[in-house]
């Protein structure tokens, strides 16, 4: 009980000294056009690959991400996995916060249409009718959140959103409200999209402390960061 009271007064005190309830983008990783950037600096480039999947495989071996489950994943999850691995190596938030209070909020445009198309092909031909459970399980976009959660033992709030384009206004407003109302202590957030050989991932961490990368998590700042990485 004393603990709870202490936490309550600590929050109240924090709110008094920090009326704006600012939160910060503390690290960022983007994967696009054969480039991987960490905190705005290009860290890995491989533009020789003809396909997006080949590029992801080359990144997987470059970063020595030893995780056999990777090979079972569909392309969307592969992209999410690589981006989140690099992000969380840069900023180990799972060591700083309780696993039950870390949120994962990710969005994209094409949902799981890449693998949906594969499942549709498997059921379109009556003579060659082979729907596969190993494919069907990936026909939901939030599976990529599940893969990140399993890998890092993260158990907090999780939601997958679908937008035409990355919506910095919504993402910053909603995630700040989660942190400010004590629904989460930190968040892995961003955009992971893969469809018809086009891919784009942009994941970042949000914390209430001004640490590391340290850009304020506002609509304007987030938009700028996203545009720079796009």
């Amino acid at each position, binding site marked *: 009980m004393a603990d709870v009271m202490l936490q*309550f007064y600590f929050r109240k005190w924090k709110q008094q000294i920090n009326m704006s309830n600012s939160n910060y983008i503390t690290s960022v990783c983007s994967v696009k056009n054969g480039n991987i950037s960490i905190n705005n600096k290009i860290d890995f480039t491989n533009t020789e690959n003809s396909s997006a999947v080949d590029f992801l495989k080359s990144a997987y071996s470059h970063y020595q991400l030893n995780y056999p489950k990777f090979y079972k994943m569909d392309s969307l999850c592969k992209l999410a996995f690589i981006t989140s691995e690099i992000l969380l190596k840069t900023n180990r938030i799972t060591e700083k916060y309780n*696993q*039950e209070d870390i949120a*994962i909020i990710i969005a994209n*445009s*094409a*949902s799981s*249409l890449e693998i*949906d*198309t594969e*499942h*549709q092909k498997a*059921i*379109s031909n*009556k003579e060659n*009718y082979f*729907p*596969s*459970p190993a494919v*069907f*399980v990936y*026909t*939901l*976009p*939030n*599976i990529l*959140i*599940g*893969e990140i*959660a*399993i890998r*890092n*033992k*993260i*158990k*907090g*709030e*999780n*939601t*997958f*959103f*679908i*937008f*035409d384009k990355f*919506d910095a206004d*919504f993402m910053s*407003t*909603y995630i700040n*409200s*989660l942190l400010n*109302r*004590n*629904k989460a202590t930190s968040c892995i957030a961003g955009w992971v999209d893969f469809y018809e050989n086009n891919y784009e991932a942009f994941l970042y961490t949000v914390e209430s402390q001004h640490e590391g990368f340290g850009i304020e998590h506002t609509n304007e700042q987030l938009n700028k960061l996203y545009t720079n990485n796009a």
Partner: protein
Amino acid sequence: MTENLTKVYVAADNIVSPLGFTSADNFECLKKMQTGVRLLEHSNISSEPVYASVIDNDKLNTAFSKLNISEAYTRLEKMIILSVTDALNQNKNIDITSDKALLVFSSTKGNIDLLNEEEGKKFDKKRVYLWETANVIARYFKNSNQPIVVSNACISGVLAIILGKRLLEEKRYDTILVIGADSMTHFVVSGFQSFKAVSNEIAKPYDASRNGISLGEGCGTIILTNNEAKVIKTKTKISVKGGASSNDANHISGPSRTGDGLLLAIEKTLKESNLKPSEVDFISGHGTATLFNDDMESLAITNAKLDKVPMNSLKSYFGHTLGAAGVIESIVGIHSMKENVLIGTYNFDTLGVTAPINIIKETKISGVNNCLKTAAGFGGCNAAVLFQKMEAAN
């Protein structure tokens, strides 16, 4: 001490399902324990006979034709337009065209049947994107805010309600229309069949002889507001008190063996609602009738000290309506609170889950002030939301 001062109220609701095209019609059928699930011998959704809850095409088209719309809409969009239109007709205080009103759309697969070549020819290619489906609905109702789409497997509907509550607390909007919809497609049925997850009879939630899910289709609409004046003056008001989501961090396609993830979502929900487990009067469970899901739920409910609370599953009435389920089942819970009637679990006979829980067998009269709705889904996700009834002073 952490209670939020902004209250979020239910202003209107609708269910479109095989049981009827209004919440009232659906609730009447449920009271009489009539199911929408039936055996489809020949259908375009399955190569073999399958039990499912499917809306009759003629009934849907007849109802839709009364709206005198000349443009072409998909089957799913027709269900949504009918559902939202009826919900708006229930409450004239709601102005969907206002810039303070926002649409939150919950769906797992949206217009996925457009991937089928023949169906796809009838519409623009982008119509298969979930954001475009939401835009089509927003344009039809002349709402100019960009809709928010939640697509998070079988917890999407509950998440959309929680999101609606949270956005209303931020006060940028005063009205949020939470729309949950998914339609029956060969795409979804074949996938669940490949998993061997579809029951060879009508689903039997929590029953000892359960052997899988029944699938279903439908649309649920809940209109939420933070402006009490927009709620129609009746004997009772329903508010959304709390809600949370969580992840098992265990497996992408199987539920946790311990129920810890769902337990966490329930505990966070009760904490936000300022309620003790003993104050919960009724649980609207997820109850898909798969072996593992129902076992997992029984453990979470028991560990949350809710094992004595009357609980049902509606999956044997509506089938599993995926992105619509959380919304449709919450609406039934809301009507149970208003009418003090708890719906029995159709096809439930003998309890057969790991931990003893209190499953309602027959529909009965019982006072309900606090209703907890739970959900769990692929990707290891769980969610819970709490509705509270307030009796009006006058």
